[in-house]
């Protein structure tokens, strides 16, 4: 067994885990964060994607012990640090019908959040989105509406970032004027 300390969705977590327990099982069974789904348990489907220190990883391929000292974000904590972006993504998935059975959705949302944070902006095109999503399998949607949702989320996020920036500038001007 190994003692681990990690931050999960903003909460400090201390636990003792069996060495062979995967991060996904730890999150699901020990912390009851069952939004992280297990579709293949061999790193192919991406339903178990979570962010570890800001990077998307397969939680079915990482041992819980390896997550010692890290910061983990699961679908339940998607708003952690990115409330506006997380909400924009969720809305885009619903508006574009980017989910059906919902099983792959948590992994898709994690990957999308990471994608928009890294590559979001006016340059983000369909092919880039397809390449970035190619590690997340969906059996229901044929990806058509998922790709549309990601592009839509990117546009809406950009727009709101722009609006926020404008707002900030306007505020600065006002304060200068005062």
């Amino acid at each position, binding site marked *: 067994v190994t003692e681990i300390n990690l931050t999960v969705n903003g909460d400090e977590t201390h636990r003792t885990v069996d060495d062979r327990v995967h991060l996904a099982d730890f999150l699901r069974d020990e912390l009851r964060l069952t939004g992280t789904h297990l579709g*293949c348990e061999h790193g192919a489907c991406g339903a178990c994607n979570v962010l570890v220190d800001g990077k998307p990883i397969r939680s079915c391929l990482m041992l819980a012990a390896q997550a010692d000292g890290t910061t983990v974000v*699961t679908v339940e904590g998607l708003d952690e640090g990115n409330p506006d972006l997380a909400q924009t993504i969720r809305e885009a998935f619903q508006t574009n019908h980017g989910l*059906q059975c919902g099983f792959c959705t948590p992994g898709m949302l994690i990957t999308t959040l990471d994608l928009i944070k890294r590559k979001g902006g006016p340059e983000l095109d369909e092919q880039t989105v397809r390449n970035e999503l*190619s590690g997340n399998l969906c*059996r229901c949607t044929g990806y058509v509406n998922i790709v549309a949702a990601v592009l839509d989320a990117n546009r809406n996020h950009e727009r709101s970032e722009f609006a926020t920036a404008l707002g900030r500038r306007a505020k600065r001007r006002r304060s200068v004027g005062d």
Partner: protein
Amino acid sequence: VSVPPTPRQVGTRIPRVEDGRYLHGRGSYVGDLLRVPKTLDVCFVRSRFAHARIKRVTGPAGLDARLLWTAAQLGDLNGLSAVSSLPGYQNHVQPLIASEVVRYVGEIVAIALGESRHAAEDLAGQVLVDVEPLPAVITIAEAIATGAPLANDSIADNVFHRETIAAGDLDAARQRASVVLTERFETARCSGVPLEPRGALACWDEDRERLTIWTSTQVPHLLRSQLAVCLGLPERSIRVVAPDVGGGFGIKASLYPEDALISALAIRLRRPVRWLSDRREDLIATWFAREHTYEVEAYAASDGKLLGLRVVVAANVGAYAPVPWTAAMEATMAAAVLPGPYKLVNYRADVLSVCSNTTVLGPYRGVGRPGACFVMERVMDELAYGLGISPVEIRLRNMVRHDEFPYRNAAGLLYDSGSFKQALQTAADAIGLGDFRRRQAQARDQGRYLGVGFANYTEETAHGTPEWLKSGLPITLSYESADMSMDPIGEVTVRVGAHSQGQGHETTLAQVAGNALGIDAGKVRIVYGDTDSCPYGIGTFASRSAVATGAAINDAATLIREKLRRIAAEELEAAFEDLELIHEGFRVKGTHREITIRELAAIAYHRVDRLPEGERPGLHAVSYLEVEPSTGTFSNAAHAAIVEVDPDTGGVEILDYVVVEDCGKMINPTVVDGQIHGGTAQGIGMALLEEIAYAPDGQPLTTTLGEYLLPSSNDVPMIRTLHIETPSDTALGLKGVGESGTIAPPGAIGNAIADALRPLQARINRTPMKPSTVWEAIPRDVA
């Protein structure tokens, strides 16, 4: 002024109400349920041999006997059986757990239990299964060879069932033919691979003598009935709950041994028992689909008219028949639908459902249709090429015309309506056929191989009672149920026997109810998936839920609406027939006298003194309805694909893909789009990637998602979907659409590849058209 009864409810793109929980990680699939204290996890010990006699099963020394179970220890359990009434069909029983002989790799031999999934898997790994191997047959050719060993000694000649469909005069057709095509086609075995693998949790309540099983199924009530048979319990002692189900696609519509086995253990051990399949187990032991061979001879006249077609269709059903579907389902379906949208008078199909030492073949989205469509559409293209007619033209010359419905096809199916020619012409326009031929010629000058392909089908949806009887099934799966209550504030809860595995029924069925009641869909709650609270129903599969459950809901809602109208007549002191439904109320025609549904509902529960004479309190209606027309209602579509093929590698890239579909009136076009996209993606997988492969000795070779390839976001293009709405005679004019998309991609893509490679004379006749298959299809002396 007459206001139509809120037509915006049906036909509107409202967002799905179920999305919220999924988008926050709060879906509740079987594996997400709280693991009740004292739960034991299960790992099934499965056969590693395709065919063998079991000599001994031994656990590690000193093992607690309650943690390892074999057939002998489990004692009396009734096996699975789908008794068919088809003439000559060989019935048999599939044991839930093998006792003497195993007949496929993956058949359950023993059950290991543990305090965790890890512990159960560790134990399973220590179990020794001592066997004496028996000769195995794996392929269709091996199974039907003279003197072949029997895969299952209950099935003589390794053929569960054979039948012949014969119509017209084929010899005369052959004599008149200008072109005769002889070809052999094959479709590889596929797996549905819902992203959530199967799983179940069974609990026994000793005090109430009740079993509750939470399980990932499309058919909760059918499973309850099956469990009652297997376990020898009354149905009232069983509760089946299918919570959120992470995809089904027909794979979870069969009745499997595992649910009954873990239920039996929960009862014997007096502890909750849970089984969560992993993907490897799923790719070995969950029922597969699609493995067919077709020997075809087709005749056409010089003007392209299809004169006749002979076919020998065989499906490799595996070691046992799927329940309740029977072993004949796959091959007989393929033979019946093979003529597709074309007028074919002279037709003969010899149909074989073959038994082998492989995992069972069950229903998967589309059932026999994707294979049949692949064959028929490849045949049409080869005939067109042989006659020098364009692929679109030959199809238009043979399609059933608008004024020819209802049309009975050569296999006896009665097509109620359709838009075959319109769909194809629309698809040809949308894909830009005219301009494409110019681009294709230019590309060829540059040494690039582009091709266009079309595929068309018509699909029977919502099969009625005689259709199931004709298939020989032991049960009629031809109705659905709705139990509807309007509460005192005029909002509605509908409990249905159908399920939802991503189809969005919580939204679309609410639209149907709202439509009939004149209330907003947001005021309707749909409840499904629990046999304790929902009326007995058949389940969600076979493109039936919108039509069948939609009709039952419409019927129940009509009963409640008319009762509300009677109360409104009393309140408004008007004649019943003078009242019209408006949004959330009734109005006396031509006046401003109105009353809201909310007020009427309150009267029905809280002021029963104001009810009309003889009217009972409450607003509750239950409807069980058989689907009409009983011969099914037929959806249709035309698919068009443009591909580029690299003849040096055999690689295929889809450049454009158009679907023109007709599922009658649409409840929610966004949801229809989603069904088409997902189905088409699965069809693309079958066309280009997916193949369950076996070694010659029956060892499965595709046991990870690195070996069994699902389409990724880089394999499926932006599918362009266009709609035609030819209303049916069902309630609301609906037709089914769930399976639709899967049917045509192998045909459309196969034809596009063949078109691209015409200069190289490639022979495209089997799926998946993976690079090695396409490369091998090109005669090398030509290239």
